[in-house]
């Protein structure tokens, strides 16, 4: 039994090291430092990518509604967290809006100025998740009966409808129409993001390794066999869709938190594609893969490859390094992975699998408990 545990021990050590590293970053760098921003954004992407992986990778439902679900979560968070005093400024075209309370302030009222806002922000995130889950339930009623590509296009359609709805002027008092929502608080630094996202992803991990997670994978591998073995397809697909959307909503809320402003315009289908490609590069069906790729992708894009856009990269100056070259390179890399390394960087393996002796790792665990 001792030898089996070794890979879990190593995994735990790595996670601990990451967390400690984040605390050190927070303590030693100013909050606007690029390293902290990269960690925060990568955390958000990890959560969103993992939630998409739960549906597309583990359950085999090809849904492209991610941006729409994130939009719901982002707006929920922003609307519930803008301080009352600042609402008149934000909703300047809509008489200060109709929502006249702020969850962080509300909780500060009886939990104090340090714990209260955090509780309020968490509540806003969870509310966003629940609202998204409810919306997913309603959307799922008609669309989950559709097969692969039709499901993809229908969910994409719903995301676009949601986006149009949030830009509608008649809803302005609630959503501020097509204007920005801003001035709401952020929950903290890199460590706070890692902790928060860590908890959410841990829940997804527990789900995936439970009897329900196994049923999802059975549906992915062979729907007909799954149904013949007594797994209710409609019920389980709906469940996966709702749970995935819940976390997409929470992720959307965290994205709003990180960005500091929210506008429906930015939640286009391109955002869904981007996240899908992150999932694919990490390995469809690998949570670790989604997380690692999110960090590599964000770090590369926001930080390491910046030079490709601004003239000098790795000490080399060239006129071809101009605005847009970075994205072009990244998308070429993505295409190479999609075409030639179809399993992504992790395949369907997880972090502990990497520490197993080679032969066992190749067989994908066996859930030795």
């Amino acid at each position, binding site marked *: 039994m001792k030898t089996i545990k070794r890979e879990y021990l190593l995994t735990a050590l790595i996670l601990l090291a990451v967390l400690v590293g984040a605390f050190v970053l927070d303590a030693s760098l100013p909050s606007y430092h690029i390293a902290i921003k990269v960690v925060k954004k990568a955390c958000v992407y990890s959560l969103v990518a993992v939630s998409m992986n739960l549906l597309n990778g583990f359950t085999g439902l090809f849904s492209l509604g991610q941006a729409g679900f994130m939009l719901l979560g982002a707006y929920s968070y922003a609307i519930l967290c803008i301080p009352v005093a600042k609402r008149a400024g934000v909703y300047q075209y809509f008489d200060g809006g109709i929502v006249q309370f702020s969850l962080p302030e509300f909780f500060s009222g009886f939990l104090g100025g340090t714990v209260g806002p955090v509780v309020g922000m968490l509540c806003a995130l969870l509310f966003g998740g629940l609202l998204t889950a409810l919306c997913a339930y309603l959307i799922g009623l008609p669309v989950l009966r559709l097969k692969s590509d039709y499901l993809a296009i229908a969910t994409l359609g719903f995301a676009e409808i949601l986006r149009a709805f949030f830009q509608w002027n008649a809803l302005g008092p609630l959503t501020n129409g097509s204007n920005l929502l801003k001035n709401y608080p952020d929950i903290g630094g890199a460590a706070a993001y890692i902790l928060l996202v860590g908890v959410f992803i841990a*829940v997804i991990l*527990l*789900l995936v390794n*439970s*009897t*329900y997670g*196994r*049923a999802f*994978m*059975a549906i*992915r*591998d*062979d729907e*007909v*066999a*799954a*149904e*013949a*073995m*007594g*797994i*209710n*397809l*409609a019920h389980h697909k709906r*469940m996966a869709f709702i*749970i995935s959307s819940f976390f997409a909503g929470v992720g959307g809320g965290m994205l709003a938190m990180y960005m500091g402003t929210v506008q429906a315009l930015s939640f286009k289908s391109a955002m869904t594609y981007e996240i899908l490609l992150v999932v694919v590069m990490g390995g469809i*069906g690998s949570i670790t893969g989604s997380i690692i790729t999110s960090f590599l992708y964000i770090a590369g894009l926001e930080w390491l490859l910046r030079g490709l856009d601004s003239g000098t990269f790795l000490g080399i100056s060239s006129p071809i390094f101009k605005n847009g070259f970075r994205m072009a390179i990244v998308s070429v890399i993505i295409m190479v992975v999609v075409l030639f390394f179809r399993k992504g960087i992790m395949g*369907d393996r997880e972090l502990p699998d990497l520490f197993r002796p080679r032969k*066992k790792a190749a*067989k*994908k*665990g*066996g*859930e030795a408990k």
Partner: protein
Amino acid sequence: MSENVLKLENITMQFGGVVAVDNLSMEINKGEIVALIGPNGAGKTTAFNTITGVYEPTNGQVSFLGSPIVRNHPQGKMKKAYKGAEAEKFARQPVLNPTPDKITALGMARTFQNIRLWKTQTVFDNVLIAKHMLRTSNVFSATFRFNRAEEAKQRAEVAALLEIVGLTDVKDELATSLPYGKQRRLEIARALATQPKLLMLDEPAAGMNPQETDELTAFIARVRKDFDMTILLIEHHMDLVMDISDRIYVIDFGKLIASGTPEVIQNDQRVIDAYLGVEEDA
């Protein structure tokens, strides 16, 4: 008279103008191994699929352990196009059309003609997933591990089942990495994990060599004994069918042409004409 497990009454399946199964009636009693045979394209698998809920029959009724589970009569466009018999017999009774998972939940589990194991899962997990149906936990209690006792019990049952079918040594292998014969056996084990009262095997010996077929024959006989199982079998291999079946139903062009014990069937001229005369399954 022993207890009736499965009963088909006037089952007809018509696709457009083609009648694939025509007024088929049959019965299976507790503890029996019954085979459904017929030449290629006779409608065996179609009949099988109407029982397991994959297809909705055009007409007829299927009863399981005495209560009707599937029932239909020609409706809509089919009312005019219907070519089968007994169109009125079930017209006044409500239509029953459960999905396959509901039928499995009643206690009827199947295997597939072309093996359908979950290919990214291990042997152990393939059987464990079939236990999902019997869970009492909901998604929250399962995620947050309040179902430890149930999970442990199911894992123990799966381990015991794998021991019985002789797959313990490969339990951590990927299901698809097993040799063909063992995949067949795993599919049967997976079906048994749902704790069925009736096991339905769709051409279990398809693609097997004589030695593998012999092993499978012995295995099916043992399953009946160890699990006190009732078995419905579709098969092409005559050796296997004649060896282990208590009774045989023969269909050709969707119609029942003969039924009875292996001896009776072997000497039935219609069957010989339709099927055994053809040098197809030596």
